[in-house]
């Protein structure tokens, strides 16, 4: 513990205080990327955190295709496995992405690290964004595992590479928008535990009252209506359409089921827009004192 003599030479900050030639957006992105890297280090320390984007997708893919596949007959025909993979992708993303963000932010908020960040010359709003970025990377991993497990059980997309990638893109965009919904939950609840339980209460019905696992064609009218307008159904139908897999929802006469790709994009962007504004407000309120 000896002298910190460098200070003699430079009694100003190392980062020149005035000059910030880079644009605000670049700074924000830079900060968010630095924090993303930090979150990834956390994951490396505790790889068990990744079980919901590795083990869970494999397990669910095997369970659903083997168990339900045996009993399920799709309206309009087709293989249940080909039908199910799109739904499984959405369902895994719709739970893991927002839960990851909610719990991760909830944990950060309950430690002193946020105070440290808030005294730095960084963009404060990058704190939440950095979390959603690392969860997007986890979502990509999740998608890879669902696809691999799907290929093993016999899923075959009937489309070109563009359609295939577009399907993944639509699903990941939706997962990313739900990350911001998760951010709202993480910032609106008192700690990681309550974020987790409240998140699950909201997300599980959302994932299940949809066409993710079962065709919704023969549901009671009121439930069918809810399922048709559930964003999860729109994304499920969009992914199936883009992949050329069986999509029984195409015969349902509701706008989102007739235009699943447009509906999926609209839903995702609306959720993203609303939740990012709300999350940033919640962050400000949570840290205001």
């Amino acid at each position, binding site marked *: 513990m000896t002298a*910190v003599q*460098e200070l003699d030479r430079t009694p*100003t*900050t*190392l*980062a020149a205080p005035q000059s910030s030639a880079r644009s605000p957006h670049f700074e924000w992105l830079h900060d968010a990327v630095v924090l993303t890297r930090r979150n990834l280090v956390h994951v490396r320390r*505790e790889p068990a955190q990744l079980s919901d984007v590795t083990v869970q997708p494999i397990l669910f893919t095997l369970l659903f295709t083997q168990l339900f596949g045996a009993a399920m007959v799709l309206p309009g025909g087709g293989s249940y496995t080909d039908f199910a993979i799109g739904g499984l992708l959405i369902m895994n993303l719709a739970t893991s992405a927002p839960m990851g963000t909610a719990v991760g932010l909830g944990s950060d908020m309950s430690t002193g690290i946020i105070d440290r*960040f808030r005294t730095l010359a960084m963009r404060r709003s990058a704190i939440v964004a950095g979390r959603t970025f690392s969860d997007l990377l986890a979502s990509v991993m999740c998608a890879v595992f669902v696809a691999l497990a799907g290929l093993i059980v016999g899923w075959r997309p009937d489309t070109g590479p563009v359609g295939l990638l577009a399907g993944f893109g639509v699903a990941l965009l939706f997962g990313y928008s739900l990350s911001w919904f998760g951010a709202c939950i993480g910032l609106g609840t008192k700690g990681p535990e309550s974020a987790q339980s409240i998140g699950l209460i909201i997300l599980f019905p959302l994932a299940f009252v949809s066409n993710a696992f079962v065709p919704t064609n023969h549901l009671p009218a009121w439930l069918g209506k809810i399922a048709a307008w559930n964003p999860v159904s729109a994304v499920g139908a969009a992914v199936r359409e883009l992949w050329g897999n069986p999509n029984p929802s195409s015969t349902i006469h509701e706008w989102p089921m007739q235009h699943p790709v447009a509906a999926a994009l609209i839903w995702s962007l609306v959720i993203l827009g609303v939740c990012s504004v709300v999350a940033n407000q919640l962050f400000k309120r949570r840290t*205001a*004192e």
Partner: protein
Amino acid sequence: MTATMIEAVGLTKRYGETRALAGVDLEAAQGSILGVLGPNGAGKSTAVRILTTLARPDSGTARVAGFDVVTEGAEVRRRIGVTAQDATVDVALTGRQNLVMIGELSRVPRRDAIARADELLDEFSLADAADRVVKGYSGGMRRRLDLAASIVTRPPMLFLDEPTTGLDPASRAAMWGVIRDLRAGGVTVLLTTQYLDEADQLADRIVVIDHGRVIAEGTPAELKTQVGRQRLDVRLARPAPSTVDAFDALAAITSAPPVISDDQRTFSVAVDDEPGLASRVVAQLATVGVVVDEVALHRPSLDDVFFHLTGHAAEVGDSSDPSDIPGEVA
């Protein structure tokens, strides 16, 4: 020309029912150490949170490094380093990863941030632990890392909120050394502490805060004079009448009236701070044949300061510490 690095006027802040600050003025000249002294819950942390842009004052204004903490927060943050009371490093990262991350978030290019981290790890004797996860660090190591994290950008203004609370004496002494070095390098430091000797050792000026108000301020010497002198306790080998002889013998050293214990064997008297005082006392008593069992000199403690200034003892209670009542629970 000496610039004023901290200029706070009439700061007030409430957390619900708790009045954390009730009108506090603070001032620190560039290159000086300002000691903010007070017990738990006095409002020290709240003052730091306001000056470091973490909290807004309910009323009053504050400028740090010439910028308003409310309206020019971003400018303030570019010029300050902060070490909070609770370590605010990421325990899941290594020491090095923490320093590099904080450098990058402070707009230091990555390559420079890595070099600076190396430098700081060396300076703070953390090089051996650099690539270990902070979770496994000792309390002293965490504090050092926290302080290192605060000076990654070499800020001209540094806030240290109770930097030595809970440290063992060796770590504490080491921390004092670092703080002195920083000051020698031209850094202005605001340091809060519960320990009078710490403020005395480090600060150029001391502000004493209690119940959200400044109750005294001045240089350490001024403050000690104001508070009172050291207390000398003498325990005699035999009881009275030798006590009387002892007073007479000591009259040359102190003029204050002594307080005698009930058994007539111990007395206490206020004395001035002089080098070699204890040996003079013993020698003086020996001239009148008084044999001494025990001589003890007591420097004024924080308790004495508070008792003198407020008439009540310093309350050490965690429950009233405003840092424990963050406004975050919205």
